[in-house]
């Protein structure tokens, strides 16, 4: 059972000697990202409270950091990095396409319902 592992992360910037070392490296990275998230969530710097593309800049940072974490969990813990390109695309692209589509529809609709409430068609302030 020869198992080949790709031992580079960050596009070859960091290279590990063994798979075990890579696992601990990824753990350190994920922990750092989580610490940054919690620190930002508690401090809430005023600079990041501005609206960017319909949401607070801070929320965009949270979402991006989450996707970064998801990437490393899937690629290194679930060994997606070592699977064939076709399996990888089958799993990842299918999910990403359907999820983005669903999110777009539901958030769009949610915003619309909010407007209906706000324009006074439905009384809620009692």
């Amino acid at each position: 059972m020869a198992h080949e592992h790709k031992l580079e992360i960050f596009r070859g910037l960091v290279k590990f000697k063994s798979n075990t070392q890579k696992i601990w490296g990824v753990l350190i990275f994920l922990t750092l990202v989580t610490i940054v998230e919690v620190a930002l969530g508690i401090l809430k710097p005023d600079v990041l409270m501005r609206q960017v593309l319909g949401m607070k800049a801070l929320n965009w940072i949270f979402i991006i950091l989450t996707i970064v974490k998801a990437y490393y969990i899937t690629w290194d813990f679930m060994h997606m990095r070592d699977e064939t390109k076709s399996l990888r695309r089958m799993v990842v692209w299918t999910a990403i396409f359907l999820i983005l589509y669903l999110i777009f529809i539901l958030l769009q609709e949610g915003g619309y319902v909010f407007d209906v409430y706000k324009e006074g068609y439905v009384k809620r302030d009692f």
Partner: protein
Amino acid sequence: MSTTVVNTGTEGKTWGGGNKPLNASYGKMMMWFFIVSDALTFSGFLAAYGFSRFKFIDSWPIADEVFTHFPFLHGVDAPMYYVAFMTFVLIMSSVTMVLAVDAGHHLNKAKVTIYMFLTIIGGLIFVGSQAWEWNTFIKGDYGAIQTKGGNILQFGKYVEKEGEQVFKRVALRDFAIAEETYRAEHGRKDGLWFVQEGTLPTYTVDEVIHGFEAHDNVLVRTQIINEAGEKTVLSRGESLKLLKENGRTVVEGANLHVNEYGSPLFADFFFFITGFHGFHVFSGVIINIIIFFNVILGTYERRKNYEMVEKVGLYWHFVDLVWVFVFTFFYLV
């Protein structure tokens, strides 16, 4: 049999058979496809949460104010630290799982056993923490009044902190004046055997209003989020008017119908999404225990193949992956 044609003339070509385009075993591939479908289920829930939140975007509860507790630190305001700890526990158990998979590749039974054991312990700590989190959320903290229209009115007062006026929440028990009431809980013994009601709140609306009148520094805070990103605090006059005109029920804690922190939908989604995730963790722990015993019994040692560990590993990492998203969308954003 010797006359049977066994050569198709396509050996070694793409369609000649024996070709493995995905280079993964059947079991592993099916685990991946199950994960895709389960991921879509969870995204359905999270997207529905997003829908409800966008619907009430100007009055949604602020997670930092809801999850402020830490075990054994009563009264200390510790927003999110415990959830961060839970996230770390789950990531850590993911690490021990992947180490078990790695040890399996080297056919190292002793190491697989230890790492599987640690993974199970991590999973149990996580499920236990979640139970504690639910318990704290259900019991509630300060209590609130629900209006006729279903809006939540919370209480608090301004206190001096480092030279600034800071709004601090006040619990109902700290200002409501208990009076003698004759309202008893309606049980099955009192009328129709199939009709009963839930536990009555500690105070009635009148008791809260009387207490409010007696303490002239207490103010009402509504659900509406102002431009500074904080909930609106009303003046003394507005507070009393709103309480007297619209106050209908006292709410303590949260369940599927009412929620002292704000919109009941917040509680509904909290119970549903973290509950569904907790159920996944729980079943993951059960599956891990089964595999753990198989490892100890030497099933995979005799098979000379630890791929089963790898497959449950995929499931376990997926549970961790889902939590990363739940953490972001429930507690951070």
